[in-house]
């Protein structure tokens, strides 16, 4: 990121633009729109740098994906915390769908449930606080099943 910032005074090369387009969704969780606009790439680099400095980590990969327009906000789920695709984690999605199975239609990607997924590995009911799912996700990468 520092290297990219160091090259901002000049137009980005094609390789740099491709790198920015690849890193942007990984860091911010949002889609990067490729344009011919030099400033857009500069803005993207600045946005990524600010986010990394603030969060001190990359966005946690989530194998679930909610349909556009749907967010999780329920008074009796995680104290009404708002979850969008930008901050959704596997743990939150799994707990939410366990609690509200009728909301499965609001997701367009739900990982296939296997023996090694957190859904079956975690036999004890989760507490209200969100548990980090990074380690469990690393042990058993879930297959993402795209809903039709």
């Amino acid at each position: 990121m520092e290297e990219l910032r160091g090259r901002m005074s000049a137009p980005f090369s094609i390789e740099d633009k491709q790198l920015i387009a690849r890193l942007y969704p990984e860091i911010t969780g949002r889609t990067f729109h490729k344009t011919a606009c030099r400033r857009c790439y500069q803005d993207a680099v600045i946005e990524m740098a600010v986010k990394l400095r603030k969060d001190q980590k990359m966005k946690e990969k989530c194998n679930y994906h909610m349909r556009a327009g749907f967010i999780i906000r329920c008074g009796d789920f995680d104290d009404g915390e708002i979850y969008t695709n930008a901050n959704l984690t596997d743990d939150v999605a799994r707990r939410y769908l366990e609690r509200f199975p009728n909301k499965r239609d609001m997701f367009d990607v739900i990982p296939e449930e296997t023996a090694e997924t957190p859904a079956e590995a975690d036999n004890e009911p989760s507490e209200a606080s969100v548990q980090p799912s990074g380690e469990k996700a690393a042990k058993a990468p879930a297959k993402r099943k795209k809903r039709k």
Partner: protein
Amino acid sequence: MAKLCESLIAKAIDFACDDLIVRGLESDGLIINRSDIDFAATVFDAQNPNIIKTLVLKTGKKGYEVNQLGNTPFTGVQSTLEVGTYRNTWTHAIPIVVLSNTPEVAHDIIDGLSNGTFVVILRNKFKGTNGDAEYQVYGYTQGLVASEGTNDKYSEDTDGGWIITLQETGARMSAMFLFDTDATTTAAAYESLKA
């Protein structure tokens, strides 16, 4: 006995001194292909049918940002009463300026705007007391379709760009808004519609 559909005002026409309306729109909005909306999943406010609480798109679909430059973005957006024989309706018009003219723009934007049907969400500068007046939805009931389009190579306004006016006619409601619970929740829901 003849059936009557009452259409009555339900509140005094007054103004709030600490929340007077301000004119104008923010420079960014959202355009959605109307066929991408999951109408069955739409949830309206129980007390006010002009408020959409939940607007969800079909699986794999998303909305697209519309950004306008200038001090008065989306100039020309207006709603007009159309007097009908049996009932009156509303016509909503949204001019969209596209300050570019490339093969990609022609294919991915102009051709689509020319023949498609859309829902557009614009952000009023007037937010309302609790934020419920910010996100105004156009095209939900009848859809917005192109009613005008120009590309003037010597236009001093667009410098050779495009102006496409999208229009919804026969709309039953004067205005529809996207709002859920509070400004923060609604902002999150709006952002989640984007590509």
